[in-house]
């Protein structure tokens, strides 16, 4: 008999009006697909009283109206959804490309990261641009995609002191993750480069350039190309 996600999922109240569902505490493609399928199912068959959904790596935070639902009641409803996860079809992933100008003022941490791994700057860029990444989820701020996994030979811890303001479009790495800052925000990821494209645009249909499940590659561009694309 095939196992149901309900057999291994763990439920944990996060607040009096939210409940966490964990498929795993690791970063795996399997649990990412469980999260994506559950999001799709909750999108097509919404549960009355659910106010919001915050996806994570192998987990989903479900925010609900405490006047309409309780933790136990919601868990029972969600378990029935989990039993049906295997049958939820996932669309063919989109292949997305993000142009990046690496190094210098656009990637102030590139040289240090390369040195930490005994690489030249060019080798570090090549490593970052060689992988195809999965959008595990969008989180943090509007349109911020958590991309994994960064090649192990480039895995680097966060900065000990986060920058108070990271410029829009900055491409950073942290652990085995990489991502693009859609807005100028505080941030502790090490910055390798910058993209001229807008990651979140409220006047665009999708708003977010990337969606959960997309496959992403970074394409190195020159400073001149960056300037041209930025002004386009």
């Amino acid at each position, binding site marked *: 008999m095939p196992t149901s996600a309900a057999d291994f999922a763990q439920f944990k109240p996060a607040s009096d*009006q939210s409940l*966490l569902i964990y498929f795993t505490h690791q970063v795996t493609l399997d649990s990412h697909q469980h999260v994506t399928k559950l999001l799709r199912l909750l999108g097509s068959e919404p549960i009355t009283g659910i106010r*919001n959904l*915050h996806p994570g790596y192998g987990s989903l935070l479900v925010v609900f109206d*405490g006047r309409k639902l309780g933790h136990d009641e919601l868990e029972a409803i969600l378990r029935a959804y989990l039993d049906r996860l295997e049958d939820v079809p996932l669309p063919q992933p989109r292949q997305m490309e993000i142009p990046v100008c690496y190094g210098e003022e656009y990637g102030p941490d590139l040289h240090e990261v390369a040195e930490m791994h005994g690489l030249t700057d060019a080798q570090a860029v090549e490593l970052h641009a060689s992988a195809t990444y999965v959008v595990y*989820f969008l*989180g943090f701020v509007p349109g911020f995609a958590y991309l994994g996994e960064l090649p192990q030979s480039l895995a680097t811890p966060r900065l000990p002191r986060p920058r108070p303001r990271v410029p829009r479009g900055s491409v950073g790495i942290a652990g085995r993750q990489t991502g693009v800052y859609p807005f100028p925000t505080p941030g502790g990821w090490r910055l390798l480069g910058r993209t001229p494209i807008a990651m979140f645009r409220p006047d665009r249909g999708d708003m977010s350039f990337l969606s*959960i499940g997309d496959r992403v590659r970074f394409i190195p561009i020159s400073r001149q190309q960056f300037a041209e694309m930025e002004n386009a």
Partner: protein
Amino acid sequence: MSVIHVQAPGLFTTVQDLGRGGYGPMGVSASGAADPVSLRIGNRLVGNDEGAAALEMTLLGGSFLFPQGAVVALTGSDFGAILDGSIIECWKSLEIRPGQTLSLGPTRSGARCYLCVRGGIEVRLFLGSASTHILSGLGGLDGRSLRKGDVLNIGQAETSLPNAALSAQALWRLAPRKILRVTPGPQCDWFPESSQHLFYSGTYHVTEEANRMGLRLEGDPIPTRSGAGEMTTEGVSLGAIQIPEGGQLIVLFVEQQTTGGYPKIANVISADMASVGQLRPRDEIRFEKVSWEMARSLLREMEDLISG
């Protein structure tokens, strides 16, 4: 159309309603009024739907000219409002005659005061809400706080709802608290008994780094269990109390990040979130643990008090 001329914006004044739900999968948090209880009561006082957009002022209020007049109510903290030389009481509906100017000053109590106007403040909605999201520069008036010279449109008052005033006793029971009640956070077991004890017995000061995204607190550092390891990033809830390395607390607030990677020791209960919106830098607070049942019944009690 009736308008408001912003003659002085105050320290940090934004357009807020009850926020936008349902966009977490895009990384968009709900946002909305920092003290939604005051916003809801203020809107009811002027006969609005309780989620109408209003002005949220922070620590220091502004000056507003009403060329065509308006019906307004001030709720939340007392910012010493004056209308053409007369002192104005909060928590009451008030008729402003054409050409009068309402002026507010520094706070005399908590962090935020709401100026609700019959008809609501009209701005272009972003994802179904008028709420300003400062970090992303979206929503509200051009995604920013008000400036001198801004002109705000007042919406058309729909059917005239009755002006519903709350009893003094209800207001007293809804008053902001400095002892915040909490339920255990999803990583509370990352903190040993001694850390839990520290957390629940300690007093904390709100630092200057307190805004709509979150409030950094200062107090005895709370160590995590040794060898607790690293968390994978997960969805975080409103009012989550997270503890990064170093052990100083951060309370996630209305304009919160949707996900985070720090362990959460506890979560402020929903009934006390409006109190968080009234905390000022240097305020001293404590935490008190309550059961899930208690958190739920306090939420119901609050809702009953607001609906009168």
